[in-house]
């Protein structure tokens, strides 16, 4: 009964139980510590649509939208001791004439320190903004939103929305590059 094997077994079981309880408590604490950030401001300053070639089929034409936006938000309340990083992303939300609901991420940023959580960006889309039907003609106006994903050191991933354009932004006519 008092063999080395039994002792090692007991000690490691004890240690791992303690560690698990501790990690559980840490992950629960982020539910209590997290507060929702105040709503930020997101506005689209410039938006243009140009035709171009699709990525996979070089002879297929497709519209590309280019969006410039201004973004300010204060996301410091999302940082607590269990916050590893924030994943911020700006997404366009719209429903086209065929009834397809679209949600397209056009910009993202990873924030790893509380000091960097005061966001003030005059940016443009990092990722190509295309339509499933290949054309932005006749597509109703889109809302742009800033969303965040809080990624903890241990525990549950949480999501939220920090800013939204006041009015939906219409897509302009496609311009030819000639």
């Amino acid at each position, binding site marked *: 009964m008092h063999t080395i094997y039994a002792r090692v077994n007991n000690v490691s079981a004890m240690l791992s139980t303690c560690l698990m309880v501790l990690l559980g408590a840490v992950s629960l604490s982020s539910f209590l510590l997290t507060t929702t950030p105040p709503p930020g401001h997101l506005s689209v300053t410039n938006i243009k649509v140009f035709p171009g070639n699709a990525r996979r089929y070089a002879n297929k034409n497709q519209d590309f939208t280019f969006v410039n936006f201004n973004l300010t938000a204060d996301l410091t309340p999302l940082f607590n001791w269990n916050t590893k990083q924030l994943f911020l*992303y700006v997404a366009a939300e719209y429903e086209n004439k*065929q*009834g397809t*609901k*679209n*949600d397209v991420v056009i910009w993202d940023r990873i924030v790893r320190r509380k000091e960097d959580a005061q966001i003030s960006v005059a940016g443009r889309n990092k990722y190509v903004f295309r339509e499933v039907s290949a054309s932005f003609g006749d597509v109703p106006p889109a809302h742009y939103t800033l*969303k965040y994903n809080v990624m903890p050191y241990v525990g549950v*991933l949480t999501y939220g929305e920090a800013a939204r354009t006041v009015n939906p932004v219409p897509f302009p006519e496609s311009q030819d590059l000639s």
Partner: protein
Amino acid sequence: MFADELKTLRRLGVRHVLLQILNFVSVLASGLMIWKGLGLITNTESPIVVVLSGSMEPAFYRGDLLFLTNPPNQRYETGDITVYKVPGADIPIVHRVLETHDLAKRGKGLVPASPLAPNQLLLTKGDNNHVDDLELYQGLEWLERKHIVGKVRGFLPYVGYVTIAMNDFPQLKYALLGGLGLLALIQRE
């Protein structure tokens, strides 16, 4: 040393050995039951996965443990981290959803897309990659629900590194398995 063990084995007899084998098998079976039970509750084929690549750094590193769910009545949203497996690729990939397109049902007139749109088109991207995953889809244009194993809900760092170590150094795996088997047979209780 082994002669001693063999002597005890002979003294305890066949029944004891059989009992130990039964114990061992029941441990394995209950592990499998827990795994499959979790899979039933979370509606995914593998409720816990280990991160194998660095394409989601700095969010997930190699060896981190992810807990997945896949509720059948929830659509995937942009920003969700999904685990997907496209036909032709043998390793599931953990990447973030970049685009969702909920198609309206075709057929009798146009029906607005429901929140549970059955045909949702997805595009994903790894946080640490510069471009989206189109090249990884083995010829597919979009991901669909049937390719998704689940979305990441919880996170536990480092723990899964044991499995990566066992894959990288197979001797470790055999040593561990052999040691456990031997212990289960010899241990008398």
